[in-house]
């Protein structure tokens, strides 16, 4: 479209006029903006700066209360206590050193601690409060609070700290918490902001570590107004966090306490399982330690004492300790042979005290031999030759398959630290692990639970529970979460014929109750609580041909750490099994003397729900049992925090 020159002229003139008007208006608006800038940034700047510095809103995290842990009766095992502490925030103080010096006049801080604190404060961002002192007494705490105005950047506050009221009893099962370390943080991809709070407590072992996610809870937030010294002036809003879940264990605090004390000074472990539902009622590893030491920050001396003890108090022997199960493994061999139809319970084997296999002589523990041995007698008197013979008929694959069905060589699904799988060896396993072929002699050794076979006390207890009940019992350690009962895993599909199990149980009954049984001294006298079991003594050293010729050195002449391990597995009552138990006493010499009495006493305590009546013990053992029971310092049920008295704090 062509426009006339006049039209264009008129249009351009108009646009120029309007353009100038618009330009003018824009200049005016910009002048207003500039004037406003000038007023705010030049005239009123001081006032705004005061507002910015003197009246800031800060977000503070509220750490949630960690979930509590109870025993099966609702008795508190892990709780939280109030912890009075003092923090310094670098940003809010002009001179950290002067402030710290001032603070040291009010509360005791050693020179070494003061140096550490200064180092810590300099290393962290200026906005992070660093804990200077904690576990203050009320007096110290109030002294700091009163002197607040002269201590810029210093904040007294109250936090929660983990407390284990049952001291040593649950050190291994529950574990302990400790301050978050840089190493902990380096393992996490996107750490919870809570963990960045200095000295925030994180589960380090046991249930505390395994259930960290649910025990920790979720942080709340507070918006607070702080003045130029960083002191809170008022709270503006508060969003409470979510406390961690409470966990109820299947363990009975009294039985646990008794079991640990009954293990005395030994390096030993015992596990008690309820065969009807798999509940782990006791899971004790001796010696134990006080987890509260770790919460408060363990001293170097204490820590060295724990790590250098040859009885290894820090290790949880119930699930981490692996031992050759010795003769307690003979039920596995027997069941494998019965199931394969390669032996009948009545069939006898001749035991002359040794047997030649593949050109090597395998000895029975009894040099003179047992003569004709059937299955019951083989268990009762723990004849080794009988099992060497059975093993040659069955082969290692069927034996190890049976072991796994009974729980040995399978990792128990438990929320505990470093749970071990154990070993039920096969030809492939040896090839892979050692690069060597399986030998016939290996099968013979495995038959009596020596050689490559390894099991933890937990494995042995599971095995005993499965033999006792004929059911596939899976151990359960957590009974309820926040009051919600957890599922029981006990199913009927163990797949071993009842008659075979009966034959083995008959043998186990004879071990304890017949005249020539290896554990007769540890029987239970009361008819309704009769116990069945199996002893085990496993070598930790090789006996050379020369030594055998000279006569095997007796255990009491060997140094402690060369002596045999003593083992015992048992269940009771015989006709209606309720509890299964396993006991391992490291270097305890003999299963019948060192382990069986402990298993009997623990079972009795479980059956009686406390110390049993005297007539439960065989008459010969009564005096000794009484003396022992009197010497124990058992927990007084009146002294524990009762379920109804428990609080969420």
């Amino acid at each position, binding site marked *: *479209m062509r*426009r006339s020159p006049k*039209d*264009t002229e*008129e*249009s*351009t003139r*108009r*646009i*120029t006029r*309007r*353009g100038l*008007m*618009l*330009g003018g208006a*824009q*200049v005016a*608006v*910009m002048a*207003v*903006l*500039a004037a*406003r*800038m*000038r007023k*705010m*940034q*030049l005239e*009123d*700047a001081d*006032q*705004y*700066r005061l*507002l*910015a*510095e003197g009246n*800031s*809103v*800060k*977000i503070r995290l509220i750490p949630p209360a960690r979930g509590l842990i109870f025993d099966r009766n609702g008795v508190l095992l892990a709780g939280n206590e109030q912890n009075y502490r003092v923090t310094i925030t670098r940003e809010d103080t002009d001179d950290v050193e002067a402030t710290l010096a001032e603070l040291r006049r009010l509360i005791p801080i050693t020179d070494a601690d003061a140096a550490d604190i200064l180092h810590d404060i300099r290393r962290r961002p200026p906005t992070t409060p660093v804990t200077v002192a904690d576990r203050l007494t009320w007096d110290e705490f109030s002294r700091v609070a009163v002197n607040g105005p002269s201590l810029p950047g210093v904040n007294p506050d109250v936090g929660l700290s983990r407390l284990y009221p049952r001291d040593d009893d649950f050190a291994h099962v529950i574990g302990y918490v400790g301050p978050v370390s840089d190493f902990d943080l380096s393992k996490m991809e996107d750490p919870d902001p809570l963990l960045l709070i200095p000295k925030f407590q994180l589960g380090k072992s046991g249930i505390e570590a395994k259930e960290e996610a649910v025990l920790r809870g979720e942080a709340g937030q507070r*918006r607070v107004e702080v003045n130029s010294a960083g002191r809170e002036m008022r709270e*503006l*809003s508060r969003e409470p966090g979510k406390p961690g879940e409470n966990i109820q264990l299947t363990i009975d605090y009294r039985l646990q306490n008794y079991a640990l004390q009954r293990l005395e000074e030994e390096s030993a472990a015992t596990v008690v399982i309820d065969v009807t539902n798999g509940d782990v009622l006791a899971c004790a590893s001796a010696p134990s330690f006080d987890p509260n030491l770790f919460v408060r920050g363990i001293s170097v001396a204490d820590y060295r004492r724990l790590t250098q003890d040859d009885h290894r108090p820090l290790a949880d022997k119930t699930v981490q300790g692996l031992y050759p199960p010795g003769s307690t493994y003979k039920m596995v061999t027997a069941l494998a042979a019965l199931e394969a139809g390669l032996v009948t319970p009545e069939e006898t084997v001749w035991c002359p005290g040794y047997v030649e296999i593949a050109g090597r002589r395998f000895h029975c523990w009894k040099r003179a031999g047992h003569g004709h041995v059937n299955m019951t007698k083989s268990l009762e008197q723990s004849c080794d030759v009988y099992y060497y013979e059975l093993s040659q008929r069955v082969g290692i694959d069927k034996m190890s398959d049976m072991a796994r069905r009974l729980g040995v060589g399978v990792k128990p699904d438990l929320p505990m630290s470093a749970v071990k799988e154990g070993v039920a060896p096969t030809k492939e396993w040896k090839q892979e692990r050692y690069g060597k072929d399986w030998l016939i002699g290996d099968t013979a050794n495995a038959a009596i639970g020596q050689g490559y076979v390894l099991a933890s006390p937990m494995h042995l207890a599971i095995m005993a529970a499965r033999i006792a009940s004929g059911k596939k019992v899976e151990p359960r350690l957590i009974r309820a979460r926040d009051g919600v009962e957890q599922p029981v895993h006990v199913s009927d599909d163990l797949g071993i014929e009842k008659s075979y199990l009966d034959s083995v149980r008959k043998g186990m009954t004879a071990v304890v109750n017949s005249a020539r049984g290896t554990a007769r001294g540890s029987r239970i006298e009361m008819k309704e609580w009769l116990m069945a079991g199996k002893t085990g003594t496993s070598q930790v050293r090789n006996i050379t041909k020369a030594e055998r010729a000279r006569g095997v050195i007796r255990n009491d002449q060997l140094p402690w750490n060369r002596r045999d391990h003593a083992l015992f597995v048992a269940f009771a009552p015989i006709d209606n099994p309720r509890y299964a138990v396993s006991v391992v006493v490291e270097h305890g010499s003999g299963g019948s003397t060192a382990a069986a009495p402990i298993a009997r006493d623990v079972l009795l305590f479980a059956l009686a729900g406390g110390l049993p009546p005297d007539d439960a013990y065989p008459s010969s053992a009564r005096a000794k049992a009484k003396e022992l029971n009197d010497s124990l310092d058992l927990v007084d049920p009146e002294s524990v925090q009762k379920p109804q008295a428990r609080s969420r704090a």
Partner: protein
Amino acid sequence: MSYLESNLKTVPTGWRKILYMNWPLVILLTAVACAGFLMLYSVAGGNLKTWAEPQMKRFALGMVAMFTVAFVPMWFWRNVSALAYFVALLLLIAVEFFGAIGMGAQRWLEIGPLRIQPSELMKITLVMLLAAYYDWLPVEKVSRPLWVFIPAAIILAPTFLVLAQPDLGTAVMLVLGGAFVMFAAGVSLWYFGTVLALVVALVFGVMESRGTEYQLLHDYQYKRIDTFLDPGSDPLGAGYNIMQAQIALGSGGWSGRGFMQGTQSRLNFLPEKHTDFIFTTLAEEFGFVGAFSLLMLYAGIIGFALYTAMATKDRFASLLSFGVAGTFFFFFAINMAMVMGLMPVVGVPLPLVSYGGTAMMILLAAFGLVQSAHIHRPRQR
């Protein structure tokens, strides 16, 4: 202006066009964008990757768009303006149905990997169509009611669509940008006076009716007005943003706290610190000197755009340049007025500084139109 212009006899062609661009404008735009990168780096706590780097990439892309648009002659843009407007309108309608929800409003369209905000596109296509309209309309008809009604409809159609998203900031920008072109085109001042009077009367009526039986707004809407008039009345609720923004801005003082030293933005007191409220961080860290310098850079951009608008004899090119300059002006004026507490908070970003892809690209492309007008202006033989 340039020494070349004295010898200029014909419209340049080919690569020579690059010599005839409005170069001061290019430099000023780059300077403002660089200030933006600096601030985005700062509010991210010294992290380039968070916002600054993506923003730089978009700026580079936007510059390419600007040069491309600049090289295309004006007649082409006049011919496609109606088409562009209707495409943008269709996209706005599409947002209503398929749009993604973000920040409480439905603003984005996802097309493959692209994420576009049609309302940003509309700001420019609206100005283009209005410029083309007044180029076509004989000058004497400009103020007749029917011929005023048509552009009003062109402005209001997208405005209502944007209000429905809801995006008050963009709606205000569309009305003001459109009115700016109509004003430049010479529509009688009476129209503008009447509309202004009506708005004032409406505001007065709304405020006066409060508390009476025939109150015109909901209570919560009045509360928002209160908050604007006195942010201190509700320091933790709606007034929080404004209060904190003003504290940050005011505490900057003459020369500011220094780059990366702002306490308010660092402590997360500021909302939207990388988008609508980025000016407060700049003002806090660089003080009055920094804030005023930015205002002057913006003034320079407006000045050179207006120079192009007045220098060309082509009516379309002239009105279009006015429109772009006006839209740009409203962007920063509203944003600054908002964070300085001169206006209620409506979501308008600080142009070329706030983090945001579509706005940056569209603005640079729009300045490409101004450049095209500058290059292809009719010359006397």
